[in-house]
């Protein structure tokens, strides 16, 4: 049995080293990282919208992590300052993302604060951004003959509006937009996280 024991114990040691360095150490180092000053907890509506963001899989095309200007011109695109760990204090699960098929969204609320624009863009992205390859989300909207009281009517450029009806945003679409508008980390970061940052004492 010598072989088997060596194999399993060796395999577990290697995995323990990997887990210690990629999971346990970051856990210990970041556990007491405070929220960046100016960061507010999500409201009920924004959290529902965040869930919608997850349900629709927005994360597969949009990152939420602007890079440092010395690495890439993210700041010049209006995506904001490089983010720090404290910016994600309220984020569970994290939505950092790995693709930029579309632009970074960590500061979309500051960059495009109009709820009407956001709703119209979700209904038909190409009405606002020619050449966009973002999917349209018609199932987050209802087309009605006329709006009922309390309905959130989406203002669309005339050539994209359905003939003989109005487009009304569902609760899900409104929640999602509330979340998008809450994405605003334009307040200054205290200190960039580094090896010797005060948080890692």
């Amino acid at each position, binding site marked *: 049995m010598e*072989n088997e024991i060596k194999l*399993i114990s060796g*395999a577990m040691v290697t*995995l323990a*080293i990997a887990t210690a360095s990629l999971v346990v150490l970051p856990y210990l180092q970041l556990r007491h990282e405070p929220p960046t000053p100016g960061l507010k907890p999500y409201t009920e509506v924004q959290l529902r919208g965040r869930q919608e963001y997850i349900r629709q*899989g927005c994360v597969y095309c949009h990152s939420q992590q602007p890079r440092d200007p010395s690495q890439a011109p993210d700041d010049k695109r209006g995506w904001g300052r*490089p983010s720090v760990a404290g910016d994600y204090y309220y984020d569970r699960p994290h939505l950092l993302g790995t693709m930029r098929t579309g632009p970074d969204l960590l500061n979309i609320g500051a960059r495009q604060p109009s709820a009407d624009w956001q709703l119209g863009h979700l209904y038909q992205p190409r009405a606002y*951004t020619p050449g966009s390859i973002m*999917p349209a989300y018609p*199932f987050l909207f209802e087309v009605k003959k006329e709006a009922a009281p309390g309905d959130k009517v989406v203002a669309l450029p005339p050539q994209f509006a359905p003939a003989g009806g109005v487009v009304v945003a569902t609760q899900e679409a409104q929640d999602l937009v509330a979340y998008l508008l809450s994405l605003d980390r334009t307040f200054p970061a205290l200190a960039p996280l580094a090896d010797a940052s005060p948080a890692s004492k």
Partner: protein
Amino acid sequence: MDIPLLLLSSFIIAVTGLFFFIWSLRKGLLDPDAAGAKVIFSLGEIGRIEEPAATGAGQRELQRAMTASHGEPDATELQARLAADASSARPAFVLLGFAVFWLLVASLAGLTSSIKLHEPDWLTQYAWLSFGRIRTIHLNAVAYGWAPMAALGVALWMLPRLLKTTLEGARFAVWGAILWNIGLAIGVGCIAVGINDGMEWLEIPGQVGVLFAVGGAMIGLPLVFTLRRRKVEHLYVSVWYMGAALFWFPVLYIVAKLPNLHFGVEQATMNWWFGHNVLGLFYTPLSLAAVYYFLPKVIGRPIQSYNLSLIGFWCLAFFYGQVGGHHLVGGPVPEWLVTLSIVQSIMMIVPVVAFSLNQHLTMRGHFAALKHSPTLRFVVLGGMMYTLSSIQGSFEALRSVNTITHFTHFTVAHAHLGLYGFVTLVMFGAIYFAMPRIVSREWPYPKLIAAHFWLVAIGFAIYFVSLTTAGLLQGYAMVDASKPFMESVRVTLPWLEGRSIGGALMTLGHLVFATHFVLMALARGPKRSGAAILRPLARTA
């Protein structure tokens, strides 16, 4: 907490541990003719080909392409292998059947999402078909369906052969597979309706994941039972890879799914610790185990340097686990972590070169065998893709390269080079070898095997070149501040269409493969012989 010191010590522990394990395992480390490599052969079998996927004529050609056989293999040992194959046939068949089903689901979902990237207004009325969901269904059908079902099916089938005994506890594996697949079906349904844990590779809700944990453990049980009654002194290198992978995966999955523990940026590091280790510590070792078995077995030649394969194993174990941080280069995570992952990504060159050298030296002078053996064609090409994708991955982790390729389609192309070019092709080869032994029947239409090979080989070449080009153009446009963001979208469009063409050919290849698999399982088509199992023995005598 002094992070650099910890980091340095972790690195030193890893390297010291590595040398310790290699030293403790091999006494004659530089002995080129290690007995361990011969464990997979019966007495007197070296020099004799085994290729159930080839026709009778193909097998004779293959044997001629190799040097002549030295004599008759020991008949009792061959009878024992017959018993070994019979003991694993049932669970292997169940797992491979599920694998083929998920391969089709994944192909159709993948092709749909690929088309949606350049036709964004196609099929937008249905939420479950929207890009964000169908792409995720594609990933999960591959990650928890095709890849693990195929790899585990092949592993269970190889195991009794490698240990020269019969598979013990096959029933557990069958029920485990059923549980696992119920879990996966529920999980994919959850994603389709939008119930989702929100992290890449970990979308399937933790509550459903319990079925993976239980089912996976049950599939792993026969490994433990069978190991206890092994009749070989030495554990062949494939058993090392398989054994480690079966213990690694549950730890990965359970740590990743611990509820209410992970937070913010820490969760991101955990996410990529998991994401990359599923590839590196689960699919990769299981596929390498298959290469290390089938390649020498088909050509009847022990692996050139057995010691090199063990060095490769321990290097992979020590370095691969720590590479995940390279998915977060430039992100808001501790700098030391990213640096560590980049260093280990580069260190991965060591086991990859060890493997590639070994494969090349074993095949050297025998590449003509590729003409006659379908198994070898898939396995050798897959092995080459492993080398390419690993070397590419090592360099992709460097900050200078990553700045361009991160966040682009280049990464997606790279992921497919690993999981498709390597893992999937190797699994195709392994299934072509194993199925005739499992159902005691030959593949009914050899031409379909050739069609499958060329469709996926050409399709994947188109896929990879298109998507890599798309990613590079996208990446260069994105770091150029003078270009608007939309430019980085526009330049990818023709190449995304190219990717759909490649993907369509691959899907067609999979349909051919699945049809052939079903025909064989149902015993349809011409029968060219009875039980194929001992036939080469009779014909080449």
